[in-house]
């Protein structure tokens, strides 16, 4: 039974890790926590739903469509909302991002209503081993999350554009002075992160249900994972996601499962009190 909880925790972590990485990357260049991530994830889930159920495309194509569509939505949110507001305080931008998530969520609600939906998938028996269950979708989510973590690591460490992203996050003026077109680098970061949020929408639709609040419900654990790892540090976000994912599931041992959502809040509260820079963050990062 406890081994099953660990499996659930790993699935949960795999759901949280990609958006936590994206949240961290965005924080690195924007210097404010962008809470519109819930909106992006919801948009991604519903794009995938429309393509999958509406037009009958296989889910993997619908998933790619959701990644592309959400990437564009995220980039547009920068062009239309955040770029005109650059230079305002992080707190102002944070409030604006919460407003944006409400706007996106309500646009989705207007089009699709608040009904709970699911993807059109053939029913498959879960894989069983030693009395533990895991569905094929969950296995895919775990494999994809690992692949994304590796891909992001390789991109940031070894590619020219990845290093430019880190340089821009580190010191935008200096990056510009060395000939890096930081406007392009920032736009690309938005696209990459938007695609990750879109993919999260698909994962959430697979593992949970598709409804307008699906993104909002994931926001707190994602934020907790990102700050646990040290906000702005993508590697920390990966480990943070694993810890939050496991913690949420394992508290079921001692608390009713309806308190699961509180775990993220608790982690945030404890961290802000004892180690605000996160496990791997630098104390120089101030919010």
């Amino acid at each position, binding site marked *: 039974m406890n081994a099953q909880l660990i499996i659930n925790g790993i699935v949960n972590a795999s759901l949280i890790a990609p958006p936590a990485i994206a949240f961290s990357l965005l924080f690195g260049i924007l210097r404010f926590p962008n809470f519109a991530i819930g909106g992006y994830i919801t948009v991604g889930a519903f794009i995938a739903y429309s393509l999958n159920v509406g037009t009958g495309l296989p889910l993997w194509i619908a998933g790619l469509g959701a990644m592309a569509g959400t990437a564009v939505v995220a980039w547009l949110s920068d062009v239309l909302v955040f770029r005109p507001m650059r230079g305002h305080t992080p707190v102002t931008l944070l409030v604006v991002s919460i407003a944006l998530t409400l706007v996106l969520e309500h646009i989705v609600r207007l089009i699709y209503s608040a009904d709970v939906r699911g993807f059109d998938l053939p029913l498959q028996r879960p894989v069983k081993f030693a009395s533990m269950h895991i569905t094929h979708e969950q296995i895919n989510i775990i494999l994809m999350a690992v692949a994304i973590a590796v891909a992001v690591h390789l991109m940031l460490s070894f590619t020219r554009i990845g290093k430019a992203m880190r340089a821009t996050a580190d010191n935008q003026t*200096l990056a510009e002075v060395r000939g890096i077109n930081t406007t392009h680098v920032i736009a690309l970061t938005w696209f990459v992160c938007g695609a990750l949020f879109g993919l999260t929408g698909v994962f959430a639709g697979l593992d949970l249900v598709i409804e307008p609040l699906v993104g909002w419900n994931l926001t707190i654990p994602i934020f907790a994972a990102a700050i646990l790892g040290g906000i702005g540090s993508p590697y920390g976000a990966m480990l943070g996601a694993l810890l939050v994912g496991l913690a949420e599931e394992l508290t079921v041992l001692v608390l009713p499962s309806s308190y699961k959502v509180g775990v993220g809040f608790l982690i945030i509260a404890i961290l802000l009190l004892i180690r605000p820079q996160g496990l791997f963050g630098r104390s120089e990062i101030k919010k």
Partner: protein
Amino acid sequence: MTEGLLNVTKVSAGYGRGDIVHNVDLNVKAKRVATIIGPNGAGKSTMIKTIAGVLCRRKGSIRIGKTEIGGMPASEIARCGVAYVPQEANVFRQLSVVENLQMGSWTAPAEFFERLERVYTLFPVLKERAKIPAGNLSGGQRQMVAFGMALMVEPKVLLLDEPSAGLSPAMVEQMFDTITRVNKTGIAVLMVEQNAVQALRISDHGYVMAAGRVAMSAPADELLKSKDVSELYLGTRQ
């Protein structure tokens, strides 16, 4: 005024509403060193930032050879052969030393290894520290990374904002030495310095700025000998 490599003509620039520098004329000839001295708040740093494109010039012309760079974004100016080293925050703290240097050759990735060898020859310690994040280095070594990164650009003009600020006296000596060595490889230098005497000693030309204007422009040795300048700005009496 004779044509130089870097020509600044009647430039005004500033932050917010007001201008900080007014009608400034400067020029740096190819392969020469020029220094701007003057009291705090005279607009020296503002001037050098304006040339680098970090701050947009409001009036006037800035040219490298025949190319007008005034009004270009900083990333374009870098491609015209200008390498600016800010006084502070002049390295990517979270990037390793070698990654910092790689950002220096961003505009010419094919020449990275060749240029890297040259920078390592000039600063051998950077080769030992190649894998360490620049933010973990000592102040002096960080300054070498900043300098090395600018040299990776293989610029025509190096713009230095207070290169000796925050360094120990021994390191200051070494820094001016390095500037001379770099200049000997054919790179023109324009710097802003508080250590005015030492800076002027290695310079060909000097400018004195006060209240946002060029108050005096003369060969460096003349400025060093001038009684007014030494009393007002060099802190020495003769």
